[in-house]
């Protein structure tokens, strides 16, 4: 007898029954549409146990690795604990000590956190950092699990930002904060090492990309890796020295800092990061794309990349939406 556990309730799975039928049959409101493993409306995540491989058919690799599955074609042979993708409660809060705080430029703070419990994450995912129980914000991880001892965040100070302002003005090394996560599916998947990677980021959108680039390089990615980081002026760019060092170290890595506000000095491209990228690499067929930062840039670049030949499954994006209640 196989049991499906959802929101602390146990449901016995009938013979030949899918997880979707099992749950909806007992009145659990799981959204669905095609019931054939195609439309992905009934996407769920296994928080305990492993979903059968064929229930992940057609899902993006980053989702497969995080045990997402399609409930309508999921026929597990062992117990499974499941949740809807947006169920925040599935992750426990972890305390973390602030190890260091360091300005990367005039508005972005490098925050280093030491977790009190191990956290299994991939470079490029995000965590939620809480100022108090009800006030938290998402920040991308710039650290790489096997390279860096602690979690690294790049926190941009927002005007009237209740969390970012607190981090910049009040938080001190040695203090303990609470975090939850990781989340997000914008990260590097090992394999296909000869594939070209294009990473485009604006502002603190560099955080996940800095993690993803170093993750790919450390996993011996051999294909060309092009990072385009954009800002209006020189003050908005950061980690330029570290990135130029990586260029020296890895012949397949290319770093293009882009300035959109007027003339660019030698060594910098003039224009918006996404425009510069699409100009330099006009045909994106078979390339893997990572797009992070301003929501408008991410949305536009996603479409442009797809139209320029990138396959939908090869486009990873993380739009930094600013909380409305900031």
């Amino acid at each position: 007898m196989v049991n499906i556990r959802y929101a602390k309730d146990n449901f016995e799975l009938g013979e030949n029954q899918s997880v979707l039928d099992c749950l909806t049959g007992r009145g659990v409101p799981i959204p669905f549409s095609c019931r054939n493993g195609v439309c992905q409306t009934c996407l769920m995540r296994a928080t305990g146990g492993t979903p059968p491989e064929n229930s992940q058919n057609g899902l993006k690799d980053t989702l497969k690795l995080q045990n997402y599955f399609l409930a309508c074609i999921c026929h597990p042979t062992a117990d499974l604990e499941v949740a809807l993708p947006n169920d925040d409660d599935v992750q426990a809060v972890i305390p973390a000590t602030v190890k260091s705080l360091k300005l990367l430029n005039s508005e972005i703070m490098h925050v280093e956190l030491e977790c009190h419990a191990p956290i299994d994450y991939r470079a490029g995912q995000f965590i939620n950092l809480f100022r108090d129980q009800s006030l938290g914000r998402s920040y991308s991880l710039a650290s790489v699990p096997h390279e860096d001892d602690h979690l690294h965040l790049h926190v941009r100070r927002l005007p009237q930002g209740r969390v970012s302002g607190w981090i910049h003005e009040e938080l001190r090394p040695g203090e303990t904060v609470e975090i939850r996560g990781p989340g997000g599916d914008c990260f590097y998947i090992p394999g296909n090492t000869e594939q070209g990677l294009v990473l485009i980021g604006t502002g603190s959108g560099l955080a996940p990309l800095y993690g993803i680039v170093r993750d790919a390089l450390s996993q011996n990615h051999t294909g060309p890796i092009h990072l385009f980081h954009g800002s209006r002026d020189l003050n908005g760019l950061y980690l330029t020295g570290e990135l130029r060092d990586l260029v020296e170290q890895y012949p397949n890595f290319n770093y293009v800092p882009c300035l959109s506000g007027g003339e660019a000095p030698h060594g910098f491209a003039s224009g918006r990061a996404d425009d510069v990228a699409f100009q330099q690499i006009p045909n994106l067929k078979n390339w893997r794309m990572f797009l992070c930062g301003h929501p408008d840039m991410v949305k536009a670049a996603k479409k442009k990349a797809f139209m320029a030949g990138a396959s939908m499954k090869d486009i990873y994006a993380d739009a930094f939406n600013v909380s409305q209640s900031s």
Partner: protein
Amino acid sequence: MSQQQSLYEKLGGEAAVNAAVDIFYRKVLSDDRISSFFEGVDMETQAAKQKSFLTMAFGGPHNYSGLDMRRGHAHLVERGLNDSHVDAVIEDLGATLRELNVSEELIAQVAAIAESTRNDVLGR
């Protein structure tokens, strides 16, 4: 082969749908006649929907009813979705299959299945 192959099998099943979905979606997005209906929608959600549509049009397994088609397009009918837009989609579908070297005979069968949803899509 002793048994007659279904249209879905002749086209190459799920692999054919996967090969077609990006090409088809790109055609739809760059088709000025219909691209405005796709503005502002989440591209990933939309790609999954395109895949569902192609699976159905290829004669593959699906559970869509006429009612689902009506519900799914009602908000677009309100925005002016009409016969000319359905024509454009069927045209883009044919062009996609031609690009994948599918025979005209099979393309006609796919177009006929897509055609059969026209009244439901337009809510008539």
